[in-house]
């Protein structure tokens, strides 16, 4: 195993010991949970962007579909994870499959704009769901139960569940990219014509990849709804999609675990800046521009170069 292969494990290990190393307060745990959940969404987006070359500007929609599945089931009295989780993940995968079927026919700038448009479609749809709070959002009666127990109410348990699912997401995406399926995706990202000329049409591979990333985004959405016990259209605003992309590029495109680093850095920076000043976006926006212009390879690139 090369030293670079150890780095993602080091990041996950740091998250595992964080509650025991002085970050076990409810404030810190809330922050870390948010970072890990957005990290899951960012890893699945990194799988799309860095793996399949599909730059989606609508990934927050899958997050939102997962979160709204929790809210809608909650409103109808269904709060059991064994039901909620598969329904939410299937809904997010289904949404991605349907929108992807159109979006993946296009490429480049078209793809970016169409995923953005579908994300907005989902956003406006949730805004008009008056029965589930409309614009104002929906407050859950309580966190989802796991096999009838209130396991998720325990902050520490929730921390490790988020961490476990984050590790699972990362492991799954890494496994997929290394497989035959992932090889086709990676090849098609660089040279789709070459893939066709060996007798494989990239479209179905991309579509399946898009649906898998959507499913993982939906999984993150379930956790996000539980973390805040609240769901609103803001969950799937296009700004959120932009933020997820930023986490991917901040962490470094081409390294899945970079997205975890990117999400951590993003959440911590955002929280810290917001505590310093009211108009923190005045600083955050230009920082984003500077990161894009000068931080090529992202944070994981910096770390890997130092330790590689």
């Amino acid at each position: 195993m090369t030293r670079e292969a150890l780095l993602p494990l080091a990041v996950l290990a740091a998250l595992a010991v964080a509650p025991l190393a002085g970050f076990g307060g409810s404030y810190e745990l809330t922050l870390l949970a948010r970072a890990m959940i957005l990290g899951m969404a960012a890893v699945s987006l990194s799988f799309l962007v860095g793996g399949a070359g599909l730059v989606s500007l609508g990934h927050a929609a899958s997050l939102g579909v997962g979160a709204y599945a929790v809210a809608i089931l909650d409103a109808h009295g269904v709060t059991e994870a064994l039901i909620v989780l598969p329904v939410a993940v299937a809904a997010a995968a289904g949404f991605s499959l349907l929108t992807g079927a159109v979006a993946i026919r296009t490429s480049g700038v078209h793809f970016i704009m169409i995923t953005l448009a579908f994300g907005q479609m989902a956003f406006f749809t949730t805004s008009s769901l008056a029965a589930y709070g409309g614009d104002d959002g929906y407050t859950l009666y309580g966190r989802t139960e796991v096999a009838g127990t209130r396991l998720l109410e325990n902050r520490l348990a929730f921390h490790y569940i988020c961490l476990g699912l984050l590790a699972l997401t990362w492991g799954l995406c890494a496994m997929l990219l290394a497989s035959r399926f992932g090889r086709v995706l990676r090849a098609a990202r660089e040279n789709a014509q070459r893939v066709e000329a060996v007798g494989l049409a990239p479209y179905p591979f991309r579509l399946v990849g898009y649906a898998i990333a959507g499913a993982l985004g939906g999984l993150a959405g379930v956790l996000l709804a539980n973390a805040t016990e609240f769901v609103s259209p803001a969950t799937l605003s296009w700004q959120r999609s932009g933020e997820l992309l930023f986490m991917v590029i901040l962490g470094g495109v081409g390294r899945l675990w970079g997205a975890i680093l990117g999400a951590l850095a993003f959440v911590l920076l955002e929280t810290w800046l917001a505590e310093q000043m009211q108009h923190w976006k005045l600083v955050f926006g230009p920082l984003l521009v500077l990161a894009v212009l000068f931080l090529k390879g992202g944070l994981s690139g910096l770390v890997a170069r130092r330790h590689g």
Partner: protein
Amino acid sequence: MAEPLLRLEDLRKHYGGLDVTDGVSLDVMPGEIHAVIGPNGAGKTTLIHEITGIVAPDSGRILFAGQDITRLSLPRRVRAGLARSFQITSIVAGFSARENVALAAQARSGSSFRFLRPASGEAVLNDTAMAALDLVGLADRAAVPAGTLSHGEKRALEIAIALATRPRLLLLDEPLAGAGPEETERLIALLKRLGADYTILLVEHDMQAVFALADRISVLVYGRVIATGTVPEIRGNAEVRAAYLGEDDA
């Protein structure tokens, strides 16, 4: 006489009043190296696009091993056994040479919708890839990122990729384009070796190479085949000479 492996029947393609392919008919027999030559603007590129399914002909038929493939997509033609190389090298630059060929091997060996095992650990694919690389003389370059290979090596890699799809017909689109004199010599030797085992349709600018390799030659001028025959027949054909001299005058 045996059935042709590839048969083009009266292919026609218009682009805004211009007959780019003006009723091309052509047979490629099993086992032969059949070259298509022609001056610039003769319609060679369009013809290749039609054979590989990038451009649909306005009328006419393409039969491959007796099957009508006129309306099939490029991937389906490749799966039927029609492999091609590109005039401008087309490889996955970020993959190693071996993974480029392994990708082609996996396309012909079971489903590519396999999600669990690392593809780089599949011995069957790697063995097929190494055999093809060995055949084109790239075995010792297998682990090198394909983007960093020399031009001639890239051309050879493309041929290895085509071979790994287990083709019944190799369609080589100017395989010598851009190669230096030494590389050209090596590539001609390679093509000659391949000619013993494969049916090849060769589109090439380099006359020397064509005369050295081809069993039969078809001459394309202004979208029409003006002559088909063996090397001596084509060399002695007055119409062909006129077409080429005409180009020289221009």
